[in-house]
């Protein structure tokens, strides 16, 4: 396998303001279905941004809460993640997209009850996580 050499520049803290973060989900889903989730980070600035990310496969979390704040599901709950640091450079307008699916179950394995849920995405870095604004999913009867 060819090994690609990357040059690590001096660590530059990404300007969070230049990173548009977004969690994309369908507006509603039926109990028992699977919801596709995309965490999207775009460099909306005019300069490249170095991101120092966790994991061989980039690690990201999704937290699902009831409107009262109770957490019902976390993607990385009880997961053990390799503590490797990965450099990704986002050019201006470049987008990083990470995908996962959620089966509308709690971490305990119980199916969700119909209602509204608030989802938030977290991209793990070597510093504070990069968080997406919350989005709402409406879960309906089958």
């Amino acid at each position, binding site marked *: 396998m060819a090994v690609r*050499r990357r040059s*690590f520049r001096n660590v530059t803290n990404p300007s969070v303001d230049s990173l548009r973060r977004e969690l994309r989900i369908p507006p509603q889903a039926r109990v028992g279905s699977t919801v596709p989730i995309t965490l999207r980070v775009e460099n909306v600035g005019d300069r490249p941004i170095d991101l120092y990310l966790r*994991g*061989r*496969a980039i690690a990201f979390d999704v937290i699902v809460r009831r409107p009262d704040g109770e957490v019902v599901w*976390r993607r990385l709950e009880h997961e*053990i993640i*390799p*503590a490797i640091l990965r450099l990704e450079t986002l050019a201006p307008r470049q987008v990083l997209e990470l995908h996962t699916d959620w089966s509308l179950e709690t971490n305990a394995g119980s199916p969700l009850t119909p209602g509204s849920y608030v989802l938030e995405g977290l991209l793990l870095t070597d510093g504070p996580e990069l968080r997406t604004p919350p989005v709402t999913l409406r879960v309906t009867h089958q």
Partner: protein
Amino acid sequence: MQASRKSAVRFALLTLVVLAACQDASQPPTAPTFPQAPQGARSPVAQARLEAIFQRTSPEVMALPGTVFADNDEAVGKVVYGVENQGAMNGVRQALARLGVDEADFEIKLTKPIVMAQGPATTLRSRFRPTQGGIQIHFTRYLCTLGFNVTVGGQPSFITNSHCTATQGGVEGTEYYQPTSSVDPTVIATEVDDPVYVKNGPGCPKGKKCRYSDASRAAYSAEVTSSLGEIAKTTAGPNTGDLTVNGSFSITEADPRTTFPEDMVVNKVGRTTGWTRGTVERSCVHTSVSGSTVYLFCQTFVTDPGGATVVGSGDSGSPVFAGNTLLGILWGGSSDNKLFVFSPFAAIEQELGGTLTLK
């Protein structure tokens, strides 16, 4: 250089004094507008005598604690010693008396210590030669931590994680830099050992590939020096986030166990969170690795009872130790960074083959 400059200044002052003295001697003396002529307008013999005192006494006096400078000060016609405190002053005075120097020939002054100008602090992310455990390494697009140095069959090497190679499992000749290729483009070491992960082996869950340790070995390049038995030590103590290096931990042996008692206190040093400490929460735990099909037998979980951060991205490969005993290397942790997981040394040595000589 300084003595020459001082002599030149003194010569200029003397010249002015002499010129002033040669002016109209009938005029009443007026206060000079320049510094007093030094009393040291002495004969060459007197200057030579002072220089001899300086040469004879300064080696012994400057060996005393608290001494700062020694100067054959032609301006005052004395040997001047600068000291940090009263205790040092007494010590110098006694030493000069013992050496038979007349009180009139020396002066002792209190002065502030001379501090070397500080460059950027050395951190776990700095360049280290010789290399040691706990410092940053770089390969392809990733950063990890150098676990510990060993020799295997006489070959100087370091151990880091299997997932800190170009491909986890199997040898691809990954080239390592320290701290990064942009800081120093020298290839410090090349991967030489990373056993493949085994599918369908005894105890390995369906769909997983298994090993007993997340470890690999890289052989040092000929020109790169490495220290056996040393792990970088940070200044401020454990669980502070401090990355500044101030000395090293000494490792003299490895723990032969694969299971460790609960509540055993263990340390790690890594390039992201530095020196952290916690207690064994679970031991010999079969562990799935997030984001992969890797499954590791008999790993150990560590947390801090106070809830401190004990791991961060880039700490992969960190040496884990207790006292002078190496326990293994860290490879992963929880998403909140409050728990880390390490592979035991015994499993690392067994899988990598050959005796890993630590010291």
